[in-house]
């Protein structure tokens, strides 16, 4: 199994641990990852500004992966949604695709529409399978309660992103439960994290984040689990900022799913980047049945 790994703009600079933990987990599960240094912005932030620039930006990345004859594995859910949407728009509108390809031709690229676009969770649950993952778990969690944050752009619009049932999704919960943790049921789990409004309307962005955090906390979660760079930053760095700006002190730490999984597969804590969060998550190791078997080298 081999994919072109798409990291996007956020992960390499603000969320390196998402990359290192994903690489470690995928390697342990026998997935080969190919890096394309020439990848650019997925296009997501451009959608507000100019639809065509958004499609073009996404298409260039898709064309680069196609050139390598590889399917695309995306870590960020906003990036995943963006690629799916752009591919859909170009499939729907041949004129748009030709226009985009006309521009890509200047760089010797062409988007044909043949590659598959997959999110990390899709690869884990469908290509690899929960049972395979179960076989790799050396020390499951006990008594750990996780709130799964699904992420809007992976889930909706469902006809285009084709990720899971948009009203009652279960893919992420199954991935969490295979680690031995309990996935709590919480009303706001399908809601937005608040990240898209940062810098446009910070107050509203913070309110939305706070609402989700309160809700997850009320449902008894110990940690929030995410699979998107924007959501993770919102629940980590921005949660910390909210706490300091608003004087709240009711934190719910957020963990990236590959970190959660990697720990119970016995992957080194340092590789998973547990200590790289703004809000400490290192305490999660205490929920492992056998305390971390592999210590930092």
């Amino acid at each position: 199994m081999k994919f072109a790994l798409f990291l996007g703009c956020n992960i390499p600079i603000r969320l390196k641990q998402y990359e290192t933990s994903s690489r470690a987990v995928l390697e342990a599960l026998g997935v080969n990852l190919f890096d394309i240094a020439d990848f650019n912005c997925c296009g997501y932030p451009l959608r507000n500004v100019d639809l065509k620039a958004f499609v073009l930006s996404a298409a260039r990345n898709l064309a680069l992966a196609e050139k390598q004859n590889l399917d695309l594995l995306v870590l960020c859910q906003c990036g995943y949604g963006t690629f799916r949407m752009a591919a859909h728009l170009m499939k729907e509108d041949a004129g748009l695709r030709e226009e985009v390809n006309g521009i890509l031709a200047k760089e010797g690229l062409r988007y044909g529409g043949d590659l598959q676009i997959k999110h990390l969770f899709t690869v884990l649950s469908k290509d690899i399978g929960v049972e395979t993952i179960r076989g790799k778990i050396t020390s499951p969690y006990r008594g750990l309660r996780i709130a799964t944050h699904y992420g809007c752009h992976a889930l909706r619009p469902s006809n285009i992103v084709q990720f899971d049932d948009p009203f009652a999704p279960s893919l992420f919960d199954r991935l969490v439960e295979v680690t031995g943790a309990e996935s709590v049921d919480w009303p706001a789990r399908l809601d937005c994290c608040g990240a898209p409004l940062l810098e446009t309307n910070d107050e509203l962005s913070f309110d939305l984040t706070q609402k989700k955090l309160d809700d997850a906390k009320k449902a008894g979660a110990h940690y929030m689990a995410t699979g998107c760079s924007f959501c993770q930053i919102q629940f980590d760095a921005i949660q910390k900022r909210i706490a300091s700006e608003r004087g709240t002190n009711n934190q719910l730490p957020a963990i990236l799913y590959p970190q959660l999984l990697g720990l119970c597969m016995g992957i080194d804590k340092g590789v998973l980047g547990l200590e790289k969060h703004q809000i400490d998550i290192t305490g999660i190791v205490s929920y492992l049945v056998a305390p971390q078997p592999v210590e930092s080298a």
Partner: protein
Amino acid sequence: MIYSIFLYTALAVFAIGMVYRVSGWFQYKIGPASEGIPTSRRISAAARGITATLFSGKIRTLLGVFFTDVLWQRWLLKEDFLRWLAHMCMYGGFVLLLLMHGLDKLVTAVLFDNYYPTLNPFVFLRDFFGLVVIAGLALAVFRRYFLKAPRPKSTGVDAYAIVILAVIMISGVLLEGTKIVSHSRYQEMVEEYSGLGEDETADLKALEAYWVDKFGVVSPSVKGPFDKKTLEAGKALHNMSCESCHSRPQWGFMGYTVAKVVKPVALPLDRANVPVLFWYLHFMACFVGLAYLPFSKFFHIFATPVYLMVDAVMKESESDPANLATLEAMQLDACTHCGQCTIRCSVAVAFYEIANPNILPSEKLAAFRTILSGRGLSKRPLTAIQEGSHICTDCGRCTDVCPIGINLEGLWFNLNRRLAEVGYPKPEAWARKAMAAEYDPAKMQEKPLSLTPADRGFAGGLTGSAQANTFSVCFGCQTCTNVCPVVGMYENPKEILGLLPHEIMHALALKQKALALGSTMLWDCVTCYMCQEHCPQGVRVTDVIYELKNQALKHLKQRAA
């Protein structure tokens, strides 16, 4: 006389320009920490800092940086070999030419007792260094304009640099070539140095024959082939009067090639005084280059090494904040406009669709410099910088690849901060207010709405994508509004958001673009697609909202223009 006037004028302009440019380093305020530190304090801090550094162990660091980074340019070598090679050829060749040839009276003549520009090895070296520069120029032109360079990053400043260098080099070669064949030049030399009188015709002829034969002079009267005896007589005279300061012109291989080429037309060229023309062209080009240097891309010859060395001996935690502010300002001039940042920029691809050069980091930097220089910018360029600057995703790649290590990310952060201060924040936040003010729904509610749309252009609906037109099947069930997490945040959402999602769809169905565009809801939409997912009619509510945002931003851009 003319030469001196031009030389001193050029030097004066150069000196004033340098003072002007360097003064910017002590004036520009980039980071928040630089606010409140006056220029005088920055200058005195710099003087103290320089003195302290020169008399400390840091002098070794400075020397190290000077050799590895300034002279050898290892950062460029690491980034791109071809680029390094081109740059080394141009800068190395030019510096050597300048020292040996341009400043010969000050340098070469002092170092070598028997220096004459017409003697070897100087004849050969001059052409050799010139060839090295020309080769570098050719490589640079090839790289910039012919090799895969998908993103337009070469601008007038780059073209000027290449053109002025090329003019200096080529005029020099042409000057040398036409001088070799020039008979009048030969005559002047004979009169001055041979010691032969006008009546010594046989000797004069013999010497001229020798020079026509061996030195490429084209004479109107003396033409070959010559017999051995004449040449021997000529050689004897040559050895006596000329040899001590004249090597064979073949050593100046480029000039000699030109001499060979122009040989058939050498006499008319000489009569038309063409060598003098080339001489003017050559020194004028040099003086223009010198005078304009502080204002051109060539200012980096000075600014970049200074920045590299200063940066190497400063530490954010230890250095005087006044000096850190100066270092920060120096970054803008240290940029060589090499374009590496733009090549690797994550959002540069958007430039194909949104023709705003401020998207590209190499151009955005120049825009930042213009803002800081205090030249009042009008609404239009500021709107363009605002758009370009906020398309950036802060991915930090530009900083990673900058060959001289400019903290570009830091500059962008401060550029955005400054733009926000003068009323140009993130376009979405800006549009949220500007659009609501322009299309205030509260005011519109008092006016009767016309059912025949005033805006014909919009009557056709939303044109950006097929799915945006789905608003027309909305039957007003309000599901979208009921599931909207943003609407759910407020007691009285209409007060805050203007039109709610179902109302936006309804306004569009009534072709009331103004109502839809003025709704704050557009900008407070989190794009969670909850509305679209739940719509029983398949209206692409979120996609419609996206499209409206595109139109609003485009509208604001046009309004600024």
